[in-house]
């Protein structure tokens, strides 16, 4: 716990008119740390990740990346600073290959016959193979559209894209919610490998089992405030549930 935090959120508030969706929330993510963000529906989890990923500007408070205060006005800016958000509904184009998804919006080109610019599909496929191998996902069908893959594999593609573009902080919104049990395990082990690579992960989940399986710390939100923060090793399911529902 000696290293500088990757991401620090200080007294962040976000108001929508009179509604205080977040009030004075603080959060810290260190390199190689998985922080779970828990809370009931409407507790402010979504507002928190949308603020961190550049969708909403904060009403007040500060966001620091590696000690430097940052302000992002769009998800692109957040991404350029190394914050990548992986949404629950899988932000993939199902009809494209893994490589094409990894490079979506920044496709590499090459010259055919020395003058005609064409998409460099070989480079995309190679990068896809390498990235997926780094995540310990060995996919052989690199020329198939991602719709041919399972939910867990597609989740891995979304994570792979973030890893390829060097995201240091990954925000994952319910990454296991739509998956079967074996696939959930696979995603959990993916998160562990991200952690081993020294990246920071913010992990939003309803599933306490997953949270306890993979997180170092848990931050519980309740009605827009931080209701409590615990090291996973020093807390129990019951305590977390109490923090979530209050009382």
């Amino acid at each position, binding site marked *: 716990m000696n290293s500088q935090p990757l991401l620090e959120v200080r007294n962040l508030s976000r108001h929508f008119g009179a509604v205080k969706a977040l009030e004075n929330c603080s959060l810290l993510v260190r390199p190689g740390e998985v922080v779970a963000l828990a809370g009931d529906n409407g507790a402010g989890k979504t507002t928190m990740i949308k603020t961190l990923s550049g969708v909403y500007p904060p009403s007040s408070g500060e966001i620091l990346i590696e000690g430097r205060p940052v302000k992002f006005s769009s*998800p692109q800016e957040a*991404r350029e600073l190394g914050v990548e958000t992986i949404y629950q509904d899988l932000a993939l184009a199902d009809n*494209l290959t893994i490589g094409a998804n990894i490079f979506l919006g920044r496709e590499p*080109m090459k010259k055919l016959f020395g003058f005609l610019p064409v*998409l460099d599909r070989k480079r995309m496929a190679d990068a896809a193979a390498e990235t997926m191998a780094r995540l310990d996902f060995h996919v*052989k069908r690199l020329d198939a559209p991602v719709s041919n893959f399972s939910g867990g594999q597609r989740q891995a593609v979304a994570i792979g894209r973030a890893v390829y573009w060097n995201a240091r902080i990954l925000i994952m919104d319910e990454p296991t919610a739509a998956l079967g049990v074996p696939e959930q395990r696979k995603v959990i082990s993916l998160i562990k490998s991200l952690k081993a690579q020294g990246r920071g992960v913010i992990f939003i989940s309803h599933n306490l089992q997953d949270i306890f399986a993979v997180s170092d710390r848990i931050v519980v939100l309740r009605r827009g405030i931080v209701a409590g923060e615990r090291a996973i090793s020093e807390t129990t399911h019951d305590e977390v549930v109490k923090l979530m529902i209050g009382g």
Partner: protein
Amino acid sequence: MMDIPTMTTSDEKSVAPQADHAEVSKTFVQRVAQLRAWLFLAALIVTFEIWARLSFGGTFVLSAFNWQSVAVFAVAPLLIAIGQTYVIISGGIDLSTGFIMGLAAVVAAHVTNIAGLYFPAPVAMLIGIAFAVLAAGVPGVINGLLISRLKVPPFIGTLGMFGVARGTAFLLASGTTVPVSNSWLAALGNGRFFGVPYLVLVAAAFVLIMHYVLSQTRFGQHNYAIGANVQAARRAGIDIKKHILKLYVLSAMCAGLGGALYAARFTAGAAQAGEPLLLDSVAAVVIGGASLFGGSGSIIGTVAGALVIAVIQYGLVFLNVEPFWQFIAVGIVIIISVLIDQAQRRFSGGKQDE
């Protein structure tokens, strides 16, 4: 016909590494679905050939004249269908193209005539074609702005433009057809190069360019992504508004070129030039393997789709069948095509587990 099917498999596959090609185990249904336009085409040609031989001992397939006619027949709907392919892959639809084509034909006729007063015929012809394509771009820009900025659904926005373009075209033509007198334009529309009509050569060159753009450039790649998942495309940093705007301008300009070639073929511009072609063009795209839900389709498939329709239309005339049967035949092919597409969705992985 054996080498053609490989071209219709989706673009991803043609260039990607082939090392583990055997592992890309497509189901039988998926294969049939991808090749359906070519299968229809083969079935039609065989049927018409047998029919021609049985009924009057002639040949349908072995006549060069028949193929020239089918190809010329296919040019105008194909040009519109190429723009429509891009739009449909993105998940939209462009209903205005038929009358944009008519508008462009009228503009081509007028401008070529006027330019003919000041310039030699070949220059006047080029000016006429350029103005036709540019004039077509105007309703395209309006379509694109309505859909991308003002969030008008494509179906409604382009339906409105359908009316506007139709009225404008008839007003410009004063309600009649506008004859053109330009020897070069007439030659372009009716001349041949080693037996191949110039119109077909122009269309073939255009097909190659548009196939390249769709399958090998970022613009094409983003088009597929937008059609599959607009959110994903937006999050990946693609400027959706700009892309959609370009898309409808492109579609309108394809129709504009179609209009200019119409004026060349008939040496006249008519507001109703493209009236029956709108639905034919959508049909060509769908028969060619695109899904109206967006995300799939290809230019090569659309070419096959346009040929299917042209072969049905010309073939039935050739066989002396009452023309009304054409509508029925094309309609049946569309329905079968969509049924195959649905079956493919059901059987191919990915979607059913959601």
